[in-house]
């Protein structure tokens, strides 16, 4: 029992790591993506739109598998095609090192790319919902472009997008369970193993309770933020 809880505790730590690292990178990365999506530059806009389409249009579980395995296949392809021409062992070793990230890194990359796409669309919606009059008032008062964005637009965008972002963040908590498909021992993976070993569904139930409380905490924090921003409408 104690051993089971120990394993599950380790799994929980991994799940929390995936959760926080994804937010840490995806939330900021989504901002340039949103700008790219709204860019006047045709090529940039199309490129970002394609990225958003692919990320939002295919299952995250598939992206996880692709991002973990594709570089390894790519390396083998290169090695089989060109090892006759380039014989330096050092070259191939460093290339292999570059193209083979470990499971956990692959999970973080896939989650960040995927969630940044969703957050980018949320940011874009929020930015586009700010009335033009706000930009015009700021310009007439002499604010620079960056002052306008940071001090006038962004705070209003944050308030508008908070409910939609909260939904995504709650989904992220549950999505961390997908990391197991490439063998990362997060909570659900640990619970399944423990459950098989003990012939008991208790570990699965414990994992469920954990996800539930995790999301309860997340909802609580986000509701607090919404309340804090509700001083104006």
């Amino acid at each position, binding site marked *: 029992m104690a051993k089971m809880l120990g394993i599950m505790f380790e799994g929980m730590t991994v799940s929390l790591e995936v959760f926080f690292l994804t937010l840490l990178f995806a939330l900021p990365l989504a901002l340039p993506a949103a700008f790219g999506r709204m860019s006047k530059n045709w090529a940039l806009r199309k490129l970002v739109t394609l990225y958003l389409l692919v990320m939002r249009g295919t299952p995250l579980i598939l992206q996880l598998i692709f991002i973990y395995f594709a570089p390894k296949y790519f390396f083998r392809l290169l090695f089989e095609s060109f090892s006759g021409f380039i014989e330096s062992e050092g070259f191939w070793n460093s290339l292999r090192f570059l193209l083979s990230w470990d499971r956990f890194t692959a999970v973080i990359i896939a989650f960040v790319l995927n969630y940044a796409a969703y957050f980018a669309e949320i940011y874009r919606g929020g930015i586009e919902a700010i009335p033009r009059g706000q930009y015009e008032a700021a*310009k*007439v008062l*002499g604010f620079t472009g960056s002052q306008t964005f940071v001090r006038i637009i962004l705070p*209003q965008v944050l308030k508008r997008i908070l409910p939609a972002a909260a939904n995504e963040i709650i989904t992220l908590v549950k999505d961390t369970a997908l990391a197991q498909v490439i063998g990362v021992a997060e909570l659900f993976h640990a619970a399944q193993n423990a459950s098989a070993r003990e012939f008991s569904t208790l570990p699965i139930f414990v994992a469920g309770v954990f996800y539930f409380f995790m999301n309860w905490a997340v909802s609580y924090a986000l509701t607090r933020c919404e309340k804090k921003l509700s001083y104006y409408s």
Partner: protein
Amino acid sequence: MDTSEVIKIEGLRKSFGSLAVLKDISFSVQRGEVVAVIGPSGSGKSTLLRCVNHLELVEAGSIRISDSVMVKDGVYAHADILRSACLKTGLVFQNFNLFPHFSVLRNITEAQVRVLRRKPAQAKERAMSLLEKMGLVDKAASYPCELSGGQQQRVCIARALALDPEVLFFDEPTSALDPELTGEILKVIRKLAEEKMTMVIVTHEMAFARDVADRALFMDGGRFVEEGGAAELLDNPQQERTKAFLRRFGGQ
């Protein structure tokens, strides 16, 4: 350069796609003068104000604001000059455009601190004296959404005045207000006129325009059709189009 003219505009042209909105507009405003611009909806009044405040780009013509040449024959000045030219004008919007996430006080101090680099205490002092003038001292800590339309518009006027513009533009400042609230705005503008604030006011309040403005311009189809002393133009228009417009507004 005649600096008793705060605004000097010559041969202004502006179109949206194939729609010519301003066709060869010229006029000037003397320091301390109050000019009313009247005309039917769609005649280009807002576009003219937006061009002078650098919210729209003109295609031809010249705009000089005090001693800053903003556009010369369709060629815009360097960004620094544009900025300093813009700071000499203020604009009061039809629908206020206050910053909803700032308190009334912060709406008025923010640009003073960030743009003019005034000390916060100094900016606050200026804001409070303007709020007193607007009869809104007790609303300093309120948020725009807690104010009536008339109060919001007065904050918008205070916000513009706080940067000490040489000329203040109003684009239909009472059009978004309930009729019983227009009086409080007109009173504020009248007070500013008495203090010799230079103002250009687009309005449909003919009685007010006649009363407070020194000069009136009638705009139709992207041109100034008639121009003259406010009382003369409104009481005794010479052009057929002016007559027809004023008849519709019950001014005649």
